[in-house]
């Protein structure tokens, strides 16, 4: 059980797909202009990642090596289509907002990456732990980014079209925050903040500019 929790927590902090590994960026920046969009996108990623990791690790002995990528992709694509159809049917406003980004979850590097790196080599329970961990880590970052951007940009946070928190109507937010260039810049500062936090906790993230970040220091 303990290593189940360890895998789960690893996905959240030191191997967070977005801030540390920096994979799966495509949808993050696009979808984080609305809290509601980011929230459901996070749920979708958690669902697809966990389910596909579970199936892949369950079948890992049966899938031949040579043709593993096509099989992984069909499994992931089926879960993505299920999410696509259900969201289209039950949550049309969110579906219209997310639009092209739901099908693109299938090529989201987080899912195929973890399915390959982890699910294909580990037991089902660990794969589910890793899926949940990575998914929650991913959604956490995307929701924080979305809350910031929606609040600053449009002055209010709307969830299932009730206004949760709103600034006085006279507030005229800076438009750039909702635009893509703003997303890049804010995400850049967010990674700097995450790195500063992990560094302050004594876990030195070795950033070698020529290679890549590998976490050193106290074991989790």
């Amino acid at each position, binding site marked *: 059980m303990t290593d189940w929790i360890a895998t789960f927590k690893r996905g959240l902090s030191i191997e967070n797909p977005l801030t540390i590994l920096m994979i799966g960026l495509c949808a993050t*920046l696009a979808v984080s202009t609305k809290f509601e969009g980011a929230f459901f996108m996070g749920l979708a990623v958690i669902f697809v990642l966990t389910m596909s990791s579970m199936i892949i690790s369950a079948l890992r002995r049966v899938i031949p090596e040579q043709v593993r990528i096509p099989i992984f992709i069909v499994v992931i*694509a089926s879960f*993505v289509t299920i999410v696509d159809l259900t969201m289209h049917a039950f949550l049309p406003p969110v579906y219209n907002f997310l639009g092209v980004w739901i099908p693109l979850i299938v090529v*989201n590097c987080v899912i195929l990456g973890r399915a390959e790196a982890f699910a294909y080599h580990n037991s089902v329970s660990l794969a589910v732990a890793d899926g949940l961990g990575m998914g929650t880590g991913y959604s956490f970052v995307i929701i924080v980014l979305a809350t910031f951007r929606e609040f600053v940009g449009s002055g209010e946070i709307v969830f299932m079209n009730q206004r949760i928190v709103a600034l006085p109507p006279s507030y005229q937010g800076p438009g750039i925050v909702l*635009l893509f260039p703003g997303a890049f810049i804010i995400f*850049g500062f967010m990674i700097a903040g995450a790195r500063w936090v992990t560094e302050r906790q004594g876990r030195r993230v070795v950033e070698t500019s020529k290679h890549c970040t590998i976490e050193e220091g106290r074991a989790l």
Partner: protein
Amino acid sequence: MIDMLRNLALLFIGAALVNNILLTRFIGLCPFFGVSSAMETSVGMAGAVVFVMTLASSATWVFWNVLLEPLGVGDFLYIPAFILVIAALVQFVEMYLRKAMPGLYRAMGIYLPLITTNCAVLAAATEAVKPGFFKMNIAYGFGFGEAVVYTLGVAVGFGFALISFAALRERLDVAPVPKIMRGAPMAFVTAGLLSLGYVGLSGMFGI
């Protein structure tokens, strides 16, 4: 004939620059940040993307119009079908290149597996082929020639953005950047400014 060429040219430039898939629509960011740390990897990647994206969209066009559309199952099967086609195509091309043209494989082939997890390839191949994939559910319904030219434009746009960003990032490695912003955070801020330039182009023509 002339205005058919004019349309294709407009479509090409529209896809490459005006609606640049990387810097105005932000599809395909994972390799954009992963590979662009060095110039030669970016050039290799750009070449591979141009080659495979055009091939992929012709394959998906064939599968869509010959198989999925007539059977009427396209609406819900297009995601697994297209990505399966792309993955198989990439793996096949990689094996073929490794065997037949080792030189070309050395320069470009090793980027091919990276294309399967590349959102841009799937997005462009699906957009050019499946009407209504683009958010506005306005049917494009390109012909075969238009689909290939459109994807070629998108791929050239992808390569152009990737290489210009790689050049910037090489300077970034040595620029006097505060310690906490060094590396990836600064790359994101630079990408933000670069995309600001491209957004200025939007709405001119093309799709």
